[in-house]
């Protein structure tokens, strides 16, 4: 669906909303290789290119490995670069993801979260982006279509910040967010231009008067230094992200933070969860609160860098926590979010008890009753002080 004109209010799928965000940013280069469920983004965006409503050079490539390679080449040439992918597509980009981050190229991609094969599955879970969590990319996650749309602009700003210069992945749930239509507020093109600004790439490959080399070999003498620089940039990204989110909220009236703490102030039990399933969990929290139960939700908007301090502050005082991962680390000790979050709480004086629950793999529904069951278990643990099963699958 090609949207050529839009008003401030719109009802759009996540894919179309993200495609419109990309159109408003008007990137220089867009290497494109479609894959379900992110195809809609590439499809809509190619419509914008065909209609002449963007100045972007769309490169149709033969694989996602090539798509990321083209992103890297174009970004090293000084272009502002975007693309979209999912699942196996992101997996095929793997090798190049590390090159993009190691070369400090602020490429922004949308990852529409989808399960990894095998078995082949096209539906939502987070195993694709969670698998890429150590690739040196910033990762933002969205609960709603509105947030997915807004995150595109924020990701661009954080990635291109001179203190950061790292690629960013904007994640939303496959089908649940990418294909469901929600009402949202769009920014005007002027507002977007004012917020993201112009991008001036450094050391452009196309500047033949000042020739440079990108991607040279670096051995024992300096490799670790470049990785250290990259790691420090990732650390700085947290403060930059907080600033960008604050500025976005002040400018456009939609406040965002690194985390979204929902009714946690006096909570005894909390579920930590990411993306769309947080919405379902919040509904359950409201219901249980009406029954006098002190429950809350913590949702991470930023996963890379990992906001460990903010998480610890938000969960200080909570007695029991269940971390719900929509991906399994296959380490026989819970999901990736569980492990990092549990570590973030380690230094608290009175740290909560924390357990891991893996849910919703391959698009399995996570329903109100599932969240209710987890909260009941948590409240029971709060009484007995004893966790029976530290890690387990739910929604089976």
């Amino acid at each position: 669906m090609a949207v050529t004109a839009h008003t401030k209010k719109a009802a759009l799928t996540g894919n179309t909303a993200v495609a419109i965000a990309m159109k408003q940013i008007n990137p220089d280069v867009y290497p494109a290789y479609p894959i379900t469920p992110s195809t809609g983004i590439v499809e809509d965006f190619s419509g914008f290119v065909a209609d002449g409503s963007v100045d972007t050079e769309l490169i149709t490539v033969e694989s996602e490995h090539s798509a990321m390679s083209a992103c890297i080449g174009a970004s090293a040439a000084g272009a502002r670069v975007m693309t979209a992918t999912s699942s196996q597509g992101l997996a095929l980009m793997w090798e190049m993801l590390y090159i993009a981050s190691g070369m400090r190229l602020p490429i922004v991609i949308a990852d529409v979260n989808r399960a990894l094969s095998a078995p082949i599955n096209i539906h939502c879970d987070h195993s694709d982006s969670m698998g890429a969590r150590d690739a040196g990319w910033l990762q933002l996650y969205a609960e709603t279509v509105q947030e997915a749309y807004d995150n595109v602009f924020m990701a661009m700003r954080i990635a291109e910040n001179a203190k950061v210069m790292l690629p960013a992945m904007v994640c939303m749930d496959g089908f649940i967010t990418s294909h469901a239509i929600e009402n949202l507020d769009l920014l005007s093109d002027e507002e977007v231009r004012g917020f993201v600004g112009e991008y001036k790439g450094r050391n452009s490959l196309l500047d033949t008067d000042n020739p440079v080399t990108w991607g040279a070999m670096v051995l024992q003498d300096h490799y670790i230094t470049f990785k250290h620089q990259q790691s420090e940039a990732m650390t700085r990204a947290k403060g930059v992200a907080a600033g960008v989110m604050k500025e976005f909220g002040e400018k456009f009236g939609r406040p965002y933070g690194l985390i979204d703490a929902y009714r946690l102030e006096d909570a005894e039990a909390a579920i930590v969860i990411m993306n769309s399933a947080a919405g379902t969990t919040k509904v359950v929290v409201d219901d249980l609160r009406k029954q006098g139960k002190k429950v809350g939700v913590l949702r991470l908007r930023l996963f890379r860098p990992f906001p460990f301090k903010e998480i610890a502050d938000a969960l200080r005082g909570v007695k029991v926590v269940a971390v719900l991962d929509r991906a399994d680390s296959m380490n026989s000790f819970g999901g990736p979010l569980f492990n990092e979050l549990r570590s973030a709480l380690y230094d608290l004086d009175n740290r909560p008890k924390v357990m891991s629950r893996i849910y919703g793999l391959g698009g399995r529904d996570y329903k109100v009753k599932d969240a209710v069951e987890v909260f009941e278990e948590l409240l029971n643990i709060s009484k007995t002080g004893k966790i029976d099963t530290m890690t387990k699958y739910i929604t089976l």
Partner: protein
Amino acid sequence: MAEHKKLPEGGVIEKGGTAHGYSTGGWRKLRPVVDLGKCTNCMICWVMCPDSAVIVQDGKMVGFDLEHCKGCGICAVECPDKVKAIKMNEEAD
């Protein structure tokens, strides 16, 4: 450490031609040796060498830049059959 922090972001080499100053010929196993008596200065080796390690002066092939030659042997193969002025010798010999 302060010194290290000045290294260019992302490992970019910020000017051209820096390979001149970095010896990369160290892992060569075979060394090209030219018989200048046979050489006809056709420049095929100069064109084909992937490391620009064939040295040409005043339009004449004069030898190899062994700081950068990797010993791949392409020059020896490409030197015309009627001439065959380049031999690859074991570095160890």
